[in-house]
C-alpha cells in the first residue's frame, strides 16, 4: 500500500527531491573530494609524486596502515566476543555492557586520547611503573594502537549484535546436541553465519582507524617519520604552508577511503546475494 502511494507522488515532487539529494551530494562530497585532488596536483604531477616520495610521507602512510592492521585482529577478537556474549546469552548487566560498547561513539576522540594520557602518561596512574620498567606506551606506537582500538571498538560489535540476535541460537544448539565441541560449533556454525557482517564491521572500523585524528593526535607526540600518521602528517604540512604536500597526503587518504567504499559495496552485494540464496532455500524447510 505505502509503496504504491510513494510511487504515485506527483512527478515534480519526485524530481525535485532527487535533485535536492544530488545537489547536496555534489556540494558536500563531490566538490571537496575534487578540491583535494585539484590542490594536490596544483603544481603538476612531479610535485605531487615528489611530495609522496618524501621519506616522512611514506613513513606516515606505512604507520597509518600498520596501526590499522594492528588494531584489526584485536577488533575482531573483542568485537566477536562482545557480540557473542550479548546476542547469545542472558545475564545481569547485559544492558550496561551494550551501553559500554557504545561509549567510544559518545566520547569525543580528544577525550579518549586524554584518557590514555591520564593512564599511561608519566604523571598518570601507571606512569611511574612504566617509567621504572622503561616501557613506552604514550608518544609511541603502542599508545597509538590503543587509542585507535578504543575509537574503532564499537564497529564490529555493533554490526554483529543485531545479526546474531536475528539468527538466534537454534543452529548452535543443534550443533551442540549433535556432539560438536564449543570450538567446533564456533568455527563451523557461528563464524560462517556471521562472516559477511564481520567483514562489513571490519571494513568500517578500518576506515575509521585510517582516518582517525583526534585521539591519535593527543597520544602521538608528532615525531616525524616515527609517530606521525597520515592525518597528522596532513595537518603539520598544512601548518607549514606546504599546500601541495598536505593535499597530496590527503589524496592518499581519500583514495584509501574510496577503496574502502568499493570493498564495502562488494561485501554488501555478496551479503545480499547470500541472503537471497538462503531465502530461496529456506521456505520449503520452514513450511515442513
Amino acid at each position, binding site marked *: 500500500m505505502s509503496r504504491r502511494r510513494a510511487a504515485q507522488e506527483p512527478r515534480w515532487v519526485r524530481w525535485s527531491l532527487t535533485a535536492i539529494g544530488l545537489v547536496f551530494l555534489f556540494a558536500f562530497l563531490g566538490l571537496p573530494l575534487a578540491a583535494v585532488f585539484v590542490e594536490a596536483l596544483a603544481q603538476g604531477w612531479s610535485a605531487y609524486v615528489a611530495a609522496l616520495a618524501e621519506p616522512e610521507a611514506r613513513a606516515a602512510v606505512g604507520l597509518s596502515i600498520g596501526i590499522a592492521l594492528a588494531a584489526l585482529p584485536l577488533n575482531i577478537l573483542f568485537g566477536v566476543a562482545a557480540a557473542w556474549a550479548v546476542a547469545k546469552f542472558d545475564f545481569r548487566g547485559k544492558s550496561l555492557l551494550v551501553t559500554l560498547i557504545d561509549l567510544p561513539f559518545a566520547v569525543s576522540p580528544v577525550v579518549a586520547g586524554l584518557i590514555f594520557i591520564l593512564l599511561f602518561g608519566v604523571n598518570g596512574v601507571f606512569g611511574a611503573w612504566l617509567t621504572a620498567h622503561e616501557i613506552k606506551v604514550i608518544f609511541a606506537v603502542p599508545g597509538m594502537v590503543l587509542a585507535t582500538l578504543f575509537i574503532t571498538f564499537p564497529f564490529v560489535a555493533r554490526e554483529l549484535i543485531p545479526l546474531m540476535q536475528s539468527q538466534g541460537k537454534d543452529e548452535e544448539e543443534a550443533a551442540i546436541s549433535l556432539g560438536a565441541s564449543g570450538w567446533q560449533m564456533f568455527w563451523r556454525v557461528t563464524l560462517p553465519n556471521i562472516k559477511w557482517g564481520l567483514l562489513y564491521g571490519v571494513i568500517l572500523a578500518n576506515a575509521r582507524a585510517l582516518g582517525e585524528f583526534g585521539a591519535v593526535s593527543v597520544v602521538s*607526540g608528532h*615525531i616525524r617519520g616515527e609517530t606521525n600518521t597520515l592525518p597528522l602528517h596532513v595537518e603539520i604540512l598544512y601548518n607549514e604552508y606546504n599546500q601541495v604536500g598536505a593535499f597530496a597526503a590527503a589524496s592518499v587518504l581519500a583514495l584509501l577511503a574510496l577503496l574502502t567504499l568499493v570493498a564495502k559495496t562488494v561485501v554488501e552485494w555478496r551479503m545480499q546475494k547470500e541472503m537471497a540464496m538462503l531465502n530461496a532455500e529456506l521456505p520449503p524447510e520452514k513450511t515442513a
Partner: protein
Amino acid sequence: MSRFNQFLSGLLLATAATLAQAEVSLLNVSYDVARDVYKDYNPLFQKFWKAKTGEEVTLKQSHGGSTKQVRAVADGLEADVVTMNQANDVEFLAEKGLVAKDWNRKFPNNASPYTSAMVFIVRKGNPKSIRDWGDLAKDGVQVILPHPKNTGNGRNSYLSAWAWALKQPGGSDQGAQAFVGRLLKNAPLFAAGGRDATTTFMQRRIGDVLLTFECEAELIAREFGKGEFEVVYPSLTLQTEFPVALVDKVVDKKGTRKLAQAYLDYLWSPEGQENAARNYLRPRSAELLKKYAAQFPAVKTFTVDDVFGGPAKAFATHFKDGGSFDQIYVSK
C-alpha cells in the same frame, strides 16, 4: 590463532624497537613552523658532531602547536631539547621541574639563538596606507590576528601595540589599554592560530592588514606569491625570541646531556647563525645581520623584558583571567 600469535610477536617487536632507540638519537620537540630551520640545521650539526667525536647521531623532530608540544613533554614525550617560539612554554616546563629554573641564563642572548619581529602584511599597493600601529586603530581598517589570549602570535601583536602606545608622547598604561581596545575593535574575528590567520587574510581575503612574524612573511610568499602582498615595518615593534632549553630530566636519564648541549650550542656557531638567516630568522651575530641586511631591514625593536619586565610578568598582567585583555573585552 597463529595469526593472532604473529600479531602479538609483531607488537612485542614494535615495543622492543621503541626501547632500542635509546642509542645515540636526539629528539628535538619544536613549534609548528620550525621545520625548515631545523631540516637544514640538522645535517650541519650531524657533520660537525661526526668530525668532532666520530659519532653518528640520529636527529628526530616533533612539530606541533607549541603549547600542546610542551604539554606532551610534561606528560612524558622524551624530548632531549625543546626549541620553542615562546618563553612561556619553556617556563611551563621549568615549573614542572623538567627544565632548569634559570634556563634562560644557560645559553647566551636569553637562550634565544635567533629572533624575529612582529610586522604588518598589507594588500599589494597598501591601499589603506597603513604605516604604523596608530593606523590600525583607525575607523574602516580591518585587522587580522590570532587570538591574543591563547596564541603566541596574537600575544606578541598585542604586546607590540601596547608598547608602541606606551612610548608615544604622554603615553601611559591606561592610554595604551584604550588604544589596544580600539585596535581590537577593528578585528572582525580572532583566528585560531598563525596559519589560520594567514588563510583568513590571504585566501578568504578578509581584512586590510595581517599581524604576524617577519619570518612568516617568507612562508606566505612561498604559498601565495611575493607580488600578492607587502610587508610594512612599524616604527617600533616587538623582537620575538625563540628560546631553547635542555630537558634535564630526559638527558640525564638517556645519558645524552653532552650531545644535547652541543646541539643547542652549535646554534650560535657561524654555521648555525647563517642557517637561521637563510631561513629568514634574524641571527644574533651582528656580522651576519649586516651580510643579510637586504633581507632584514633595520627596525626599532623592544623586548618583553625591556617593557613588560619579562614574559611571566607580561603574561600575568595581560593574558591571565582578569588581565588587561579580559578587561578590554568585557568593556567592549
